[in-house]
């Protein structure tokens, strides 16, 4: 049985303008020690999906449906106390912006110790020692001194290391990393990813890597969810996805991926804007930006369909198999040509 199994999860928010369907019908599984990449643009619902999993969306203005099963516990509709038991102890979370995700008026050590003390019956001294250990583990120099510093005394990369340390401090089974490298410069990004890989090996935890960067997914993940307009539009093993992407949005993402050793002047980009979640376009949410759009795309939402290429490979698209294969092959050829 999977460690985390999400079935048909939907999250909507009530706003003054109406109901926003942020996530609808998302399902996936995650096994121990695995890495799941979640890819999509801003507003694709990827962050909300996992905030919902963690029970961190405001219940007063949201409607949640579906199921989240974590190691036999149903988390949708679970009691706050039960969720708190899991949060921080069995599922850790790393957020996008290390600059704002740490409390500016509390010392680093205090914030790390809090995470320990909330879940373990230990003394403050023990918690502090644990915090220093973790800071060392995330390669913070002079950790025993820096532990008494405030967040603003750290650089962005260092703060993200602190966030990672905080997420890992209770040896969680899953770490949800919500765009952990987006706010960092490229060099730091690589260091952080390297660190996370190493830590995953050491701690044997599962990672959910939420990102808009397929490159990051390629480096870390086993499986990939591609989300668009609050829905999963393609899901597959990472190698399978890169080899046999099945739908236009994924093609677009792959096309916009920066490739080392290429001589292109300019990266491809997907034209247009992400859809409004308040008033989503009828039919396939991607249809206004899709260069292969057909009439049916504007009427009907394509079903999540099993791909011919792999057992766990699903996608949503109205294009027939032959057309998709033809387009993808020509795209792939163009991409490798550039690479050459």
């Amino acid at each position, binding site marked *: 049985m999977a460690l985390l199994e999400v079935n048909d999860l939907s999250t909507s928010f009530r706003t003054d303008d109406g109901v926003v369907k942020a996530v609808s019908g998302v399902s996936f599984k995650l096994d121990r020690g695995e890495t799941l990449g979640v890819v999509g643009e801003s507003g694709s619902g990827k962050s909300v999906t996992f905030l919902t999993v*963690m029970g*961190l969306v405001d219940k007063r203005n949201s409607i949640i449906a579906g199921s989240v099963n974590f190691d036999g516990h149903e988390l949708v509709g679970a009691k*706050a106390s039960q969720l*708190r*038991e*899991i*949060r*921080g*102890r069995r599922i*850790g*979370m790393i*957020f996008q*912006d290390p600059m*704002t*995700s*740490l*409390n*500016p*008026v*509390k*010392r680093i050590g205090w914030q790390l110790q*809090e*995470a320990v003390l*909330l*879940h373990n019956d230990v003394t403050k001294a023990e918690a502090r020692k644990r915090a220093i250990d973790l800071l060392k583990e995330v390669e913070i120099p002079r950790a025993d001194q820096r532990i008494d510093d*405030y967040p*603003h*005394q750290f650089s962005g990369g260092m703060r993200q290391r602190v*966030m990672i340390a*905080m997420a890992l401090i209770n040896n969680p089974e899953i770490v949800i990393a919500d765009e952990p490298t987006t706010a960092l410069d490229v060099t730091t990004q690589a260091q952080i990813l390297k660190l996370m890989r190493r830590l995953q090996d050491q701690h044997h935890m599962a990672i959910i890597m939420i990102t808009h960067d397929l490159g990051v997914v390629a480096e870390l993940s086993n499986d990939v969810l591609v989300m668009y307009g609050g829905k999963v539009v393609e899901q597959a093993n990472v190698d399978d996805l890169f080899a046999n992407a099945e739908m236009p949005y994924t093609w677009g993402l792959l096309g916009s991926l920066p490739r080392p050793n290429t001589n292109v002047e300019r990266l491809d980009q997907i034209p247009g804007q992400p859809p409004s979640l308040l008033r989503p376009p009828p039919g396939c949410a991607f249809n206004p930006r899709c260069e292969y759009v057909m009439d049916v795309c504007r009427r009907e939402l394509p079903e999540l369909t099993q791909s011919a290429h792999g057992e766990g490979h699903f996608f949503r698209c109205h294009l027939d198999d032959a057309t998709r294969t033809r387009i993808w092959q020509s795209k792939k050829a163009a991409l490798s040509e550039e690479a050459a």
Partner: protein
Amino acid sequence: MGHFLIRRVFWAIFLFFVATVVTYLIFFVIPSNPAKTIAGRNADSTDVARVARFYHLNVSVWQQYWIFLWNIIRHGSLGRSYISRQSVRWLIGQEAPVTASLVFGGAVFWLSLSVPIGILSALRPRSLMDRASMTFVLIGISAHPVWIGLILSYVVGYRLHVTPIAGYCNFFTGGEAVQCSGPLQWAYHMILPWITFMVLFAALYVRLIRANVMETMSEDYVRTARAKGASERRVMVQHVLRNSMLPVVTILGMDIGLALGGALFTESIFNLPGLGAQILRSYSVFDLPVIAGVICFATMAVITFNFVVDCAYAFLDPRIRLS
């Protein structure tokens, strides 16, 4: 921090000069002739000249200003009133405690009301209490302290006999001239003025605290705390409150200065012998030394208070303290 202190001190000195120069200039721009006013209606020009010499009014504005400054530096003296001839420093020494009682007591009142209500209405936005506090805000912001004061003393003091209608009692006992004294009497007489202040300011603070708490609750680090498994209560106490109070401390520092303005009316209404009532009276008879002295003192008080607030802010916010 040392840098910060030095900058503050220089800023204080600068403000002091600006405030006193402006006060002096205003009084010389306004066409009035204090020497003649003091000398009276029958005075001939030698009489007026004699009064002018007595009060150093026969020299230029700048020399008068210099004498004013020199008296402060050399003798710690703010001069003496044209009207009552009392030493201005003595007057301020008498009146400042009254104003301080009013302003700080008022601040305690308005904070002890607005902090809990502000937080509660942030936790339950759009609830009945939230809406009720919004109505309260509108009344508080729109009403004039004179009106609030008169209504309070009429209803609570005169009609219901719950509090004194007006008047002041010294905090410390003793002194034959004092009709009533002691902390209990003092507080009893200050209740209505404090409530007046509370109505004036609490409303604003409820909204300010509500907005700050709501904003802080949507901060990333609050989400981090929740993700760590902290309870709502713990999130509120440990992560939201201190951060959401930072802007309140700043505004409070500024409003204490503003409150001195409110004291002007509140003191007059409740017969409190404080600086605000004094400046109103002195203004009506163009008693420049008293006005300049009180403004000078008030400037220093506001500067000092802002400094204290800055220090408090630095204490609360390590980003300021350590940079």
